[in-house]
């Protein structure tokens, strides 16, 4: 008798241990998907694997393990990342710059390269990268983060075109300021004066970002290099 569970599609989420990644994994599971989480820490997923997304070899090994345990990967969400704010451009150190690009850009590229061969072989699948509304509108004193998130958009749009005829869909979700542990208690994005400028007057929730991601995963066949931005109206 076939295992019915094997018919359920598989979502791999990076950064699945907390914040947006954890909310994505939870929503996919709630909707009947099997889930794998790739994070530095363990995650509440069917197959948690621990790896640093900026380490290409570690990512390849982790994804091979997921494919072996779950049979395939249908959809990938690259949510792994971190945030630093309040740093003037001249004060961003070489190390801060390099690490941000290695994690945000490198992490997205490493994961995409590892999952694409399987998707291209099956002529189906999808990738959604988590970018940021700041990459659309610009920001001050977090320039290395914004530059990295902007690079993710360029990568995603180009990759989307490169694989457009293969049936694999590549898109991005650009969240507005989201209520996750990455926004520290004293973040400027939590200040009432800032929130009052937003049409929704509040931070978006990790679940609301997951909602946009899940829509692209479940009904996103007509999107190619699109950027969907649940941002509370921060960038319209």
């Amino acid at each position, binding site marked *: 008798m076939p295992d019915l569970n094997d018919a359920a599609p598989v979502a791999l989420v990076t950064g699945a241990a907390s914040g947006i990644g954890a909310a994505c994994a939870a929503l996919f599971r709630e909707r009947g998907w099997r889930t794998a989480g790739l994070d530095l820490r363990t995650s509440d997923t069917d197959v948690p694997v621990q790896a640093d997304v900026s380490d290409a070899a570690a990512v390849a090994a982790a994804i091979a393990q997921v494919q072996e345990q779950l049979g395939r990967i249908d959809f990938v969400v690259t949510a792994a990342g971190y945030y630093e704010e309040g740093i003037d451009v001249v004060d961003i150190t070489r190390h801060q710059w390099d690490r941000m690009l290695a994690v945000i850009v490198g992490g997205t590229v490493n994961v995409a390269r590892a999952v694409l061969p399987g998707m291209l072989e099956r002529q189906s699948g999808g990738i959604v990268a988590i970018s940021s509304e700041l990459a659309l509108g610009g920001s001050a004193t977090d320039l290395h983060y914004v530059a990295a998130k902007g690079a993710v958009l360029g990568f995603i749009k180009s990759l989307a075109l490169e694989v457009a005829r293969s049936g694999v869909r590549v898109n991005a979700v650009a969240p507005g300021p989201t209520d996750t542990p990455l926004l520290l208690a004293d973040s400027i994005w939590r200040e009432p004066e800032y929130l009052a400028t937003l049409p929704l007057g509040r931070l978006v929730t990790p679940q*609301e970002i997951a909602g946009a991601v899940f829509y692209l995963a479940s009904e996103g066949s007509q999107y190619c290099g699109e950027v969907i931005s649940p941002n509370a109206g921060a960038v319209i």
Partner: protein
Amino acid sequence: MAERKIALVTGAAQGLGLATARRLGRDGFKVAVNDLVDDGRLSELATELDGLAVPGDISDPDATSAIVSRIASEWGRVDVLVANAAYMTMSPFLEADPVEWWRHLDVNLSGHFRLIQAVVPGMREIGHGRIVIIASGWGVIGQANATAYAASKAGLVALTKGLGRELGPQGILTNGIAPGFIDTEQLQVDADDAGITLDEMRRVYAESVPIGQIASTEDIAGAVSFLAGPLSSGMVGQIIQPTGGITRTRA
């Protein structure tokens, strides 16, 4: 069980509007369906969905308020408005008849302006609402020989953004969809104009799209379902573009 939400879909007799009404019905909405006149299709659809047929020309100000009053008297309110009805003809710009220019603006833009004016007071009263505006990829990137249509749809893009900003603080979320080619009755018109078969027309359009296929009405109805439903509650003033990669810019 939660009370069923109420949606109004304009241009629901055929094509995208029809698919949208059926999708929202499956999603659990009570659906009021509008089109210019009820030639039987509208009341048939209303029966199928256990909904309400509210025919009327949305470019006629009296008709728009009558449509909304009718729904209010039957069901009490409108939770979701899908602004879908549209008019389109094509011609080279210099040959465009000014009457055609105004017809595009009257139906596509002014019609929905008035309809939104008619539904918003009720949404304010209940403290929530969703307005889903069907714009067009051509309203984002422009289109030769369809300047009036594209301009009217670009107007809807700006209307979406303005309403997003203005009504968002009141709990009324306005977002829009800019579709590319959709497999609707319009394709037969285009095929006849081009002197080719319907299948040839589908192939021509599909080849021009990066993903190599055109959207079904159900695909775009799925986008409406997203913007009308709980998964999009963080979005306001946004235009999503299920165009298969035709529009590679942010709207």
